[in-house]
Structure formats: C-alpha cells, structure tokens
C-alpha cells in the first residue's frame, strides 16, 4: 500500500514537472484556424454550368473564382459550357439545356453551380425546380423571381450592375442631363435596360440595341449628338466585333463622356464601373461548400454582388476634355 502511494505521488510530481516545462517551451507557431483541411471534401462532386463559353471574359472570371475556392479541397469539379452567348437563339439554348441535364444525370454532382440567366432558365427551372439536387446560382441579372425562384433547392447571388454610380460619375463631366444607352441586342441587355429604369428610375433619352459592329458605330455617332452622356453596356453578342476597331473608332469620334459596366469595353469608354466576375464565382463555390457541410440551400439568403472595379481611360478623357477629379484618379485603374 505504501509503495503504491509513493508511486502515485512520484507520477503526479513528474507529470507536473513535464507539463510545466511544456508550457514554457511550447512553440509560438501560428495556429491555422479556419484553414480548409486538405482533401476535406474528397469524393464530393460539383458541376459548374456556364451559360456562355470559355474565352468570354465574364465566364472566365466566374470560372477562376470557383477554381480559386475549390482548389485543394478535394472536390471534383466539372465544367459544362452552354455556349449561348454566340448562339443566342432560344432553340439552341433549349438543346443546350437538355445536354446539361444529361451531363447532370451522368456526372451525378452533389451540388450544381449555375452561372447566368440561361443556365437557370433552360436547365434549373425546367428540370430541377424544387428537386433534391442543391443548386447555387450566380450572375442572374437583377431578379430571380422572373424564373419563379428562389426554389427550395436554390441559393444564389444576383448580379446587379453599378450603373447608377457610373452615371453619377459621368454626369460630373457632362454638359446636360440627357442619358443614352447602347448595347448588344440580347435578352440580358434588354432586361438590364428595363431594370435600370425600374429599380433606379434612370430614364434613358435614347436606347440602341445593335447586332453588328457597323450598327454599333452608327448608334455611337448618333448618341454623341442626341444625349449628354451614355452607357455602353456590353459588346458580347455583337457580330464581327473587333476591339481594336472599336477603340480606334471611339478615339476618333468621342465627344461626350461614355461609361461602361464591363472591363472588356473600357478601351472605347471614358469611365468604367465594372462588376467582378471572380466575386460571383468565389461566392458560389463557398456557398456550395457550405451546402456540402450540411447547410440547406433555402437557409442561405439571396445576396447581390458587392465588389466593383473603377476604371478611367485617359485617352478618351483627353477626347472629352475632362480633367479627372482626384478621388477618381486615386481609386481607379488608369488606362493609358
């Protein structure tokens, strides 16, 4: 008995000694709280359905955002492109929707990320409305309720343009209040013009939707005289588009401030207030991981994009004769 008591006492003393030493000597390594454990999602599959095509800057940005988040998580990512920007007929989109459906059936993803209106309109709405398959959408312009959404199996980020802020900037360099609108003749851009008026009460004096670059030039010239500032929304969907041609044309013919909401049309615009495609992709991928962790899509609130990028094109500024204000110069990315 005496022996046992002595042994226990000795054990306690030694334990106290070494634990004390350990406390003193414990290394002050940075703890990696919140770091994604390697391959935590091994065996999980996510399908990203892109409404458009690789090489389209917006699609590439969303893809990059998704890949940034999913890299190293162990998730198997598959990308399906519907290619409906170049092929913009409804019939083509319906066929692309059916192909996407067969890809889903074959790949059997745990979560689907559907980017932009057509992926939602032609895949999710007809085939996966209130289904068991969780869907994260992004890039849907302004409002998902036009597709009857959100559904109980969807969560998503609405894409809103920063047009009202853009127009505020442009007006600082304009001589009047007349605002014009020029864009490719696509369903999305027509929807955008409608929502600018509906949500921000922006009354465009003139609106042009064009299908070819010649039509764009014609409208560009007309707007120089018809309005005091105008928004050049998007060139995607304009046939035979040439960036260099557009840039040269804008440099020769710009007289009034022209703004854009896309980075790829900055060469022919004065100020750009653009959305960041990566934000849509990153949010979607993070939300997909939350769903894989057991969160229900219906418990995740619908959000809108928050990040933006400001651009100033000095060559066009020179054509407009604008001395750019300090706040813009300090915050914008300068294009020379």
């Amino acid at each position, binding site marked *: 008995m005496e022996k046992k008591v*002595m042994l226990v006492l000795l054990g306690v003393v*030694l334990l106290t000694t070494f634990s004390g*030493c350990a406390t003193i000597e414990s290394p002050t390594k940075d703890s990696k709280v919140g770091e994604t454990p390697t391959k935590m999602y091994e065996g999980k599959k996510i399908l990203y359905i892109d409404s458009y095509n690789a090489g389209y800057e917006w699609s590439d940005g969303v893809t990059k955002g998704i890949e940034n988040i999913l890299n190293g998580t162990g998730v198997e990512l598959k990308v399906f492109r519907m290619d409906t920007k170049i092929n913009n007929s409804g019939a083509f989109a319906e066929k692309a929707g059916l192909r996407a459906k067969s890809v889903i059936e074959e790949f059997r993803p745990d979560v689907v990320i559907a980017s932009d209106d057509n992926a939602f309109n032609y895949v999710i709405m007809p085939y996966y409305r209130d289904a068991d398959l969780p869907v994260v959408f992004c890039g849907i312009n302004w409002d998902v309720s036009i597709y009857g959404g959100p559904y109980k199996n969807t969560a998503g980020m609405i894409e809103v343009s920063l047009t009202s802020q853009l127009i505020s900037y442009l007006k600082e360099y304009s001589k009047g209040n007349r605002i014009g609108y020029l864009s490719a003749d696509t369903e999305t851009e027509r929807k955008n013009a409608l929502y600018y008026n509906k949500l921000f009460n922006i009354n465009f004096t003139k609106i042009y939707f064009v299908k070819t670059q010649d039509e764009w030039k014609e409208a560009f010239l007309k707007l120089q005289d018809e309005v005091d500032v105008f928004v050049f929304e998007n060139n995607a969907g304009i046939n035979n588009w040439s960036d260099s041609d557009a840039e040269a044309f804008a440099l020769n013919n710009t007289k009034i401030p022209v703004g854009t909401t896309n980075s790829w049309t900055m060469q022919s615009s004065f100020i750009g207030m653009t959305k960041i495609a990566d934000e849509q992709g990153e949010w979607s991928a993070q939300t997909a991981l939350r769903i894989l962790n057991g969160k229900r899509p219906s418990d995740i609130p619908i959000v809108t994009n928050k990040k933006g990028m400001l651009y100033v094109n000095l060559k066009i500024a020179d054509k407009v*004769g604008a*001395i*750019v204000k300090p706040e813009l110069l300090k915050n914008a990315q300068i294009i020379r």
Partner: protein
Amino acid sequence: MTQKSFKLSIGKKILLGFSILIFIYLGMALRSYSDMNEINSLAEQAVPLSYQITSLQEFAVSLESLDSDIDKFFTVNYKENQEEVNKDFDNMHSIIRSIENNADSNSIARLQEIERILSEIQINFNYLADLEQNNSNSREINEKRILLYELINSQRQKHRELLLETTNKIQVNVLDQKKMISGIMKEFLMLGISILVFGVLLSFITSRSISRPIGKLRAATTEIGHGRFNVNIPIQSNDEIGQLAFAFNKMTQELQKTTVSKDYVENIIKSMFDMLVVAAPDGTIKIVNKAICDLLGYRSEELAGRSIDMLFYDDVPNSERSFLNELIKKGSIINTEKNYLAKDGRKIPVLLSMSKMCDDEGNILGVVCVAKDITERRRAEDLINKSNEFAKTVLSSMKDAISIIDVNNFRIIEVNSVFLKIYGMKKEEVIGKSCYEITHKRAQPCIPPYDICPLMDTLNSGEHSTAEHVHFMKDGEKRYVEVSTSPIMDDNGKIIHVIHVARDITDRKQAEEARQISEKKYSTLVEKGNDGIIIIQDGLLKFINSKMADISGYTIKEAIGKPFFDFVFFEFKELVIDNYKKRLSGYEVPNNYEIEIISKDGKNIPVEINASVIDYEGKRAEMAIIRDITDRKRAEDQIKLSLKEKETLLKEIHHRVKNNMQIVSSLLDHQAQYIKDKNVIEIFTESQNRILSMSLVHEKLYQSKDLAKIDFYNYINDLAANLFQIYVVNPGKITLTMNIENIQLDIDLAIPCGLIANELVTNSLKYAFPAGTKGEITIAFSKKEENMLEFVISDDGIGFPKDLDFRKTDSLGLHLVTILAENQLHGEINLIRGKGTEFQIKFRGIK
C-alpha cells in the same frame, strides 16, 4: 543495490540528501542575478527606438494632411490651399530631420530616400499648380496629377517600410527581454520541481529502506508459524535493518535442521492424478486430495468430517457401508468398478482400490481409497456398442439385398431383412449356407469366364467388383440382379469377408428389352419411310436416313459431320440458317417451307422441309423431314403454263369482241351519214353509245390483270368522258362529279351498270340543262351493308317532269334502265325528285 553501497546509517543518508538540495538552490540563484543585468541593458536600448516610432507616426499624419490639402487645392484651386500644402511640406521636412538625429545608420539611409521623394512631390506639385493656373490641356494635367499621387503612394510605402523596420527592432528587443525573463522563470520552476522530486524520492527511498525489510520479516514469521521453514530474507543493506534480517535467517536455518515439514506429504497428495480419500474407521472423511475435489466439484472443507458414503452413487441403499465393512475384514479391495456421486448429481464411473491403514500394533487407523476416473473408457465402450447397432440398422434399411460371405467357404454369415424378403426365406434357412446354393440354386460356385463371379474378383483383386446375375427366388422365380461385392479386411489387410449387395434390376432389364424392340421398330420406320430424315446439331449433320442419302446422292458416311447448309442452294441458305437459329432459340418460325438442295451431282432438288426441335444426345437439335417435291413442282409448273395459255386466249377473245363491237359501232356511224332525219340520227347515236359502253367493258377487261373484274371508276370515267364529248356543246358549263368507291365489278354487273350510266347521263346531258345553263352531273357508287351496292346518277338541272312516270314513258333509254336494273341486276330503282333528278339503284353484289 549491493551491501557495500549502503554503508551509511539511515540518519546520515537523510542529512546528505538535504545538503545536495541546498547546494543546487544556491547555484541557480547566482545564475539568475547575471541574467537580470542583461535584461536591464536591453531595456535601455529600446528608448530611442520608441521615440523614432512616435516621430514616424507624426510624419504619417502630416503625409495624409498633405494628400488631403492637395485634393482641396485641385478641387477649389484657391491660393490659401496652396499655402496649406507648402506648410505641410515644411512640417514634414522638420520631422525627418528630428528623426535623423537619433537614428542608426540603416534608418538614416531610408530617411534620406523619404526626404528625396518628398522634395520630388513638392517640385511636381508646384509645377502642376502653375499648369492649372495657366489652363493647360487636360491630358498633361491628368498625367501630372497621376504622377503626383503615385509619388505620394510611394512616399507612403517608404514610410511604412521604415516604420515596420523600427517596430521590428523594438519587437526583437522586447522579445529578447521576454525570452530572458522566461528563461529565469523556467530555471526557477525547474529548480523548484527538481527539489520537490528529489525530496519526494529521498523520502520514498528512506521509507522503503526501512519498511520493506520489516514487511518481509513479518511475512517470514507468518510462514514459519504455518510450519514452512524454508524461508530466507535477502540482506540488502548493512544498516540496522540488515543486521536484523541476518539474525532472522540464522534462526530459520536452525529450525529447519530440527523440525520435519508437512509440506512434503501435502505436495505428494496434491500432485496425485488419482483421487485419494482417507477416512477414519467409522467412515468419516479425514483427507481428500485436489483430484477428487476437482472431479466431484467439492471444496476439501465441504468433504472433511462427513461420511465416505456420500461419495458413492447409491444404487442400493447402504450397500457401500457393507462394502466398507468387507474391506476392513479383507484388508484391501483392488480395481473394482464403482460410481462416484458428484456434487451436481452426476454419476462418475471410477476404478477403485481401497486398503486399510494400521499402526505398528495393527490397530486400524483408517481407510485409504484411491480411484481413477474411467468415464472416457465407458464412453468409448458405449460408442462401440452403438456403432454395432447402427451398422445393423443401416443394413436393414438398405433397399438392396445384402449378405456377408465368409471367403473361406462362400458361406453366408449375415444377411439383412431385405435379402430375406426378396429371396422369400427365413434367416435360419440362409445363414451357414453357401451363396451359390441360395442365389443360383446350384451346388457349385460360378465358374468364369462364362459365369462371372464378382466375389472371386474381389477376392483376387482386393477391389470392389460388379456383375449382372440371374438369381432364383425360393419359389423358383427368375430375377435379374446387379451384384456388387466389396472386401472386408482384418487389421493386417487380409480379406476375411465380402459384402455381397444384390440389387433387383428385373424391371430395368425388361424396360431395356422393350426399348430395344421399340428402337428397332423406330429404326425400321425411319429407314424405310418415303421421306428423308436428318438431325442437325451445332449446324452439323448428326444423322441422315437412307432415303435422305438417296435424295442427296451422298452416302450416309459422306454426309455425317458436314454442315447441312453446304447442301442448301445459295438462294435459300439465309432463310434456312435464320430459321434454324430462331427455332433453336425458342422463336416461332414456320415449320413447313420449301427450299432447294444441291445433290452430289450438282442438280437443284426442290424439297419440302418439316422441321422441329428435339433433344438429341442430351443437347438441343433440329430434326427435319425432307420430302423430294421434284414431281409436284413439275406438275405445278405445267398447271401454271396451262393457266397462262388460257389467260392469253381469254384476253384475245375480249380484244376481238371489243373490236367487233367497234366495227358494229363504225358501221352504224357510217350508215348514219346517209340519214337526214335528225331523230333517226339520234337513234343511231344512242345505239352507238350503247355498243360503246359494252365494248368499253371488254376493253377494260383485257387491259386488266384480273380477266374477270374491271375497275369501275376507270370504266365509268371513260364512258362519261365519251358522252360529254358527244353531247356537251359548251365545255365547262356542265361539270361531272364522280364519287365512286374503289370497287372491282364482275363483267355480269359491269355491263348493265355501264348501260344504265350511258342512258341516264345521256338523258341528263340532253334534257336537264336547257339553253346552255350551268349544272352538275354526279355519279356515285358505294358499298352498303350486307353486300348491297348503291348506284346513284343525279343532276341539279330542271328536274324530271312531275307528271311523268319513268316506268311508263316511251323512252327506250329509261325502259332499258328499268329492265337492266330490275332484271339484270335484280335490284330496285327509285327516282327522287328534288333539286334536279336523282336515280337510285340498289342491288346485291356478287360474293
């Protein structure tokens, strides 16, 4: 630990331990004093660095103020804003200089870079201020503004780097101090713990060095008390306790020499495998060993003091007591089988030996019983008995007649009940008799090779042997049996008996004979039949009969094993292969069909095949009955040729009739050219039309494939076209509508229908539309229920005169219509007067 290592007494050991602790503590205190001096020196170095950080923070505030004032100047462009900016520049220059006074060489280089950028910002700002006041072009102003902001950002970066460097130096200083303080704390803590551990160990060792030997002494004393003197306490020290242990060991050695231990006896009893009981003369148990306790399930305390009777299974009450008395009288009982009674009531057979135990004077001290457990032996004996019983049961339950025969004399030594039943004998009539006497009813054994004896085979080969024999029953009935014999050997491998199994195969034999007869009949049928018969399996000919050999010209030997499809004419190969595969796969395909095969001499032979699926040699196969239909085909060709000739003849007749009628019509036409009276001409025209309508039937008949029927639509169409050509003056005024179903009419019906159509359409054309009025004539022909046909000719003209009965007019045409409809067609005719005129004729078609 050896005896030498503990030469010190207990008190001195304790004093030595505490002295070591005090020395350790003093050493540590001296070291800590030196460390504290170093910490003080580090703290003094940190003071100028903290001043530098404060100044750099002031510089940062001024830089932001400069940025803000430049913005204001660009936005409002007032002179006072420019002055504010210049003040910011002065302030920042003075801050830099104040830092340089206390900075080290590294920081001074960075400060000089900061000052250079500041000067550049100042120069650019002043230049830009001039530009804006002179309203220069926007491009240059924008570019200069951007440059200015880039310089300010660069200044921010440089400032940040210097601030970071200074902060790092302070951090390193603080960390060094912290590290040293931490080291001192750690050393003190370690020291405290070491002293504590050392103290505890010292106490433990001291306590143990006293208490452990005393404990051993206590245990040794207890052992001696129990009579065990072989205890020895190890001496581990030379202190007071060691000396006590030495004295104790000496005492036990003395005791061992003078006293006998009872352990020896106990160990003998304990290690015995056999069960031992020692009882008093009155039967009271005194000693039991472990073996009996383990077997019966008692503890030794439970048996001690109780009667020995309780150990025995009491088949006969109190019998053991008399048995004990007998032992006492005899002195011993050796190896008698008895049963022990276990605590749980089990009966345990034992081989028991008992003897009485006496002292030197012969007085009985007790009884010693030694027993051995024979349960396993009993179980083995039971198994053998059961095995024998089982063998007998097996023999009796066999369906075959089994006998066991002594090989020395062929005498039967055992039979089963089936044997007796089949042979109709009693056991005593069989046992001891020779096998050939009982089964073959003869006086000597079977003599090979004509009379095979399987028993002899088994005896010679030592192996199993079989043969078919004819055995005779007791009543003389003859039975076929299949005999099989197997050897029974002794331990040396010598055959001593043979098992003779006779299976009654009389029924099978009779069935085989019947089958052979049947096969012979079947073979005769197949070989003597008029049709060829083949069996195809896996695409190959497995069987062909003689007739098939005759048809094909091949011998049976040549044909067997060849692919059947090689014999089929190429036009039919695909059909035959397809049918063969589908039929074997279970699909329904025609069983009867005609093909051509190629004979050995290369001739095409038409044959009719009747195929079906059969099982042949355990596999699915196709059996085909092949009939040579060369003669039948030849006859059919003859008939076809004959029909063709008749058809040609009939066409020729129709052709000639039509030609003759057209000649008659031409004659009338020719004759009419000499007539001036219009009424007579009209009569001629009408007659011509009637002849034409009949001729048209014959024309249609010889043009049609079917010489008995014509397409009524085509016929009426041609007929009406002819009438329109004759009577319609203004084409387009009167139209013809035909609603005629696709109906083929016999010549007997077509001619009267054509004549009726001729008359009624002519009437409509002539009378219904006066003075060139417009109108429509409709001809309809349709099937109604129960093979009834309805022929309707109508117009929407002026209508049939209301007071006129079409049956009683002078018109030959209407008279003809009525006669044809009622007498030729055996139908009924009705006139419907509405808008225009409509004649409905209903008649029965020919089935």
